[in-house]
């Protein structure tokens, strides 16, 4: 070809190159996903990137009021905060001790959760344990509830005289729990472990179900005993899932605030999230920024580790990962001990905490189980001795206002999150500009790494004052809704991408080749076909938004009180009955929402983890 027409080919390469560039540009610009992607970038630039950048900048820029200390004008670059956090006389107190505490607490609870979760998952999937289907949903309950719920239950039972407020059950029953049991690292580790065990159970159960049964059978044919099969075949195949679970737990444990706040502070036990909270509430925003940046860094590291394990997992799953029914292994004489163990875990992680919370709201004196001590006053009574909250939780206007605020704000945020997630999925799957999709993916994942408290601080500093056409948002519902949207985007965009991947290209292409324009295709084909994913991508953020505490605790004002902030306010007042009652209501909403998601959309809970 080139030999035949050398003249023509050589005379116009420049113009042809230019025109073919024009052709490519035309295709990219005309693709609807391009415009959509650019719009989404703007939205997330505002909701996610700007706050994160302002947060990180806060670590190296002199804040207002710190001019004298830093010896420079507000806004100029400074190493003052870094210096103060990393190498000053107070570094140990405000940084190194909390950091070490965070690390060893996370590690301990991670190990305990794995040690508990893996055998239980195996019992649930591979053996003839009685009622294993029931257990496999019942044991997940702790994961669906906020971790600090369990902290409240713990203090209700083990509180001692070292702190003011009502006495604990143990105390009433005549035994004063020692300090190490009532507050500090031990209860925190116990609660983290109980909270994370369901997570391990879910992930490992899923991985076990996806292991082809033939692998085990092949080993059996080769003469391996059940123990050999477990240690030599199953466990090595589960390794990626286990490591991935471990890193995700680690990342979550770093950001968790409520538990350490309830159980750590009374004993002066600090972790990173509580020092962060302290530096925020004492207006040391530069220090807060440095600590937050460290937390983001730790989250980032665990994420990178997780990605590594995921890649390894992909190498494993090249075998056809089709779920096959595996014959369950009879437990024989171990059946009863196994049942006792699983039942015990259920009792400790679900029955006792929830039962304690519920009971604590209907007992006048904690821990006194005589009949006349029970009352419904804290729920429906009037003129209670608690000043400022003198009515039962169910008849108090404050509860209903907080409930209504929670429902409509979280609901609206969840709906926006679900829709935005699908649109992100659309751009990722369809855009001819691959970079656009990648950028969106990365940006929407960022909030996962930022602790809720730090994110809230960034929002506060960015949106508290009017900026350009946007008015000051502090004290409005808007700022709460925006931050909830941003915070749930990591999950929503993942759900959106997988929904769009599952939908595939062909359905839309078929409509396109039959002459349908973009908006028409979106309306008649794409959205109807992903509506169940949309629904679950809305409900799950709703469930987690309802229990969210650290994200909203410094942004909510009396006018925009939510259920979670109301319960914290009540705790600060020492009104345990009311606080626990509000928490019980939150749990009820969360469980109902989860149950509805599963029933209505048969969505897999394991997909929503993270």
């Amino acid at each position, binding site marked *: 070809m080139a030999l035949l027409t050398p003249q023509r080919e050589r005379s116009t390469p420049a113009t042809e190159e230019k025109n073919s560039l024009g052709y490519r540009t035309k295709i990219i610009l005309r693709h609807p996903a391009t415009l959509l992607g650019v719009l989404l970038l703007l939205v997330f630039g505002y909701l996610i990137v700007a706050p994160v950048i302002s947060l990180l900048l806060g670590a190296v820029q002199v804040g207002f009021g710190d001019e004298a200390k830093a010896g420079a004008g507000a806004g100029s670059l400074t190493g003052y905060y870094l210096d103060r956090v990393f190498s000053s006389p107070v570094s140990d107190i405000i940084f190194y001790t909390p950091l070490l505490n965070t690390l060893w607490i996370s590690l301990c609870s991670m190990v305990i959760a794995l040690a508990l979760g893996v055998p239980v998952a195996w019992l649930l999937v591979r053996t003839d344990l009685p009622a294993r289907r029931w257990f496999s949903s019942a044991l997940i309950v702790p994961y669906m509830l906020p971790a600090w719920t369990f902290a409240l239950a713990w203090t209700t039972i083990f509180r001692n005289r070292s702190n003011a407020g009502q006495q604990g059950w143990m105390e009433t029953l005549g035994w004063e729990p020692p300090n190490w049991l009532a507050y500090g690292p031990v209860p925190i580790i116990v609660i983290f472990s109980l909270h994370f065990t369901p997570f391990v159970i879910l992930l490992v159960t899923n991985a076990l179900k996806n292991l082809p049964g033939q692998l085990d059978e092949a080993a059996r044919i080769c003469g391996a005993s059940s123990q050999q099969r477990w240690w030599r075949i199953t466990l090595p195949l589960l390794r990626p899932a286990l490591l991935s679970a471990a890193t995700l737990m680690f990342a979550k444990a770093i950001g968790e605030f409520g538990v350490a706040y309830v159980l750590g502070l009374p004993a002066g036990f600090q972790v990173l999230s509580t020092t962060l909270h302290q530096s925020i509430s004492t207006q040391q925003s530069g220090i807060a920024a440095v600590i937050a940046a460290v937390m983001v860094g730790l989250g980032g590291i665990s994420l990178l580790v997780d990605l590594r394990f995921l890649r390894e997992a992909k190498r494993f799953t090249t075998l056809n990962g089709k779920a096959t029914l595996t014959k369950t292994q009879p437990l024989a004489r171990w059946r009863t001990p196994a049942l006792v163990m699983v039942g015990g875990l259920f009792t400790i992680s679900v029955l006792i905490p929830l039962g304690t919370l519920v009971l604590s709201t209907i007992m006048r004196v904690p821990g006194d189980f005589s009949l006349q001590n029970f009352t419904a006053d804290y729920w429906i009574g009037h003129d209670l001795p608690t000043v400022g909250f003198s009515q039962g939780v169910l008849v108090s206007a404050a509860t209903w206002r907080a409930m209504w605020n929670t429902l409509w704000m979280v609901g609206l945020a969840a709906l926006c999150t679900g829709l935005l997630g699908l649109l992100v999925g659309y751009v990722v799957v369809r855009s001819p500009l691959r970079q656009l999709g990648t950028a969106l993916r990365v940006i929407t994942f960022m909030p996962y790494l930022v602790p809720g408290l730090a994110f809230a601080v960034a929002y506060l500093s960015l949106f508290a004052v009017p900026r350009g056409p946007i008015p000051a948002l502090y004290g409005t519902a808007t700022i709460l809704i925006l931050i909830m949207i941003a915070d749930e985007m990591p999950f929503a965009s993942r759900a959106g991408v997988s929904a769009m991947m599952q939908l595939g290209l062909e359905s839309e292409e078929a409509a396109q080749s039959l002459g349908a324009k973009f908006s028409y295709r979106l309306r008649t084909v794409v959205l109807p*076909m992903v509506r169940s994913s949309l629904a679950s991508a809305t409900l799950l953020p709703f469930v987690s938004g309802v229990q969210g505490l650290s994200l909203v605790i410094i942004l909510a004002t009396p006018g925009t009180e939510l259920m979670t902030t109301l319960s914290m306010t009540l705790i600060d007042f020492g009104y345990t009955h009311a606080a626990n009652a509000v928490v019980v209501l939150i749990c009820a909403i969360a469980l109902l929402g989860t149950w509805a998601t599963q029933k209505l959309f048969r969505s897999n809970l394991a997909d929503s983890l993270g």
Partner: protein
Amino acid sequence: MEPMITLRGLGKTYSGNHTPSVDSVDLEVQLGEFLCLLGPSGCGKSTTLRMIAGLEHPSTGQIVVGGTVFDDVAGGQCVPAERRSLGLVFQNYALWPHLNVKENVGFAPRVQKLSKAERATLVDQALQTLAISELAERYPGELSGGQQQRVAIARTLAARPQVMLLDEPLSNLDARLRLEMRAEFQRLHRQTGNTMVFVTHDQFEAMTLATRIVVMDQGRIQQVGTPSEIYDSPANRFVAEFMGSPPMNIIELGHNQAADTWMKSRDSAATSLGIRPEDLEITTTPTPGKFSLPVTVSALLPTGGSWIIELTDGQQRYFATSQQRPALTEGQQVQAVAQKLHLFDASGQRRTNVEAVAA
């Protein structure tokens, strides 16, 4: 007459790939033709089809359909897929599960903003043509594979496309249905007179359906011709070996004594020769004037109605076929006599003076 579809220098290189998936394809499809793009998977046939449909965009070249320039990379011109009025039938049918058969088929008429009466007529016609009127109210999930296939075709028909494009339309059906649908396609083509372009990797499908076949490999067109042209005079070794089952027996010259002796002084440019299995006749003695190979019968494979005879000369295997039960036993020494030979030169191109050699 102006061809219905013209492809000029069409090429497609996916980003990240060095070699093009489709490489300077030139092709003309006439009005009313039933053209088949045939080739192994990954040869660029589906990409070519999707570029015509406008779902992929070429990196070089031009696509002209019905006198309209659809793509012209050098000229910077592109008509979006939804404005091409071509019908595409997908390999997996791509029926919309939330719409019933009637709504699926009525989609294009609705998009074209036709009146209610016109829409109803078009849908009814399309359903009747495919003989699925009784399925109108069902949802895709309630249909068998063959029925889904018919709905997908009806949906495309109702759009009244100027060209129908079919992407491996039969590959998801079982053997019996495939036969049935093949006849259906033939009838449909006769009945509607539509220009149809379809993609397949199945040579039998191509042979039975197409008026012309385009054989592709590694993004390039290897040969264009009628089914019998392609089968009887393959342009090169790729086409020769791809068409036919069992495949053509190829003998590399320079390693096989019988072949070297036979070829000496006949055609010095040929480097390999090929014999279709059905052109190998098994006899006990060599036939004078014909190329014969001394071989041993190594296996007799009945395929139901015909037999495949596996032969060996100690160096390589050969296949012959027979319509009658062969009166041979394994291990028997026989002569395989070529009734027809194909010669190929060093670049794999077919030598055109073969008949003279074989006679």
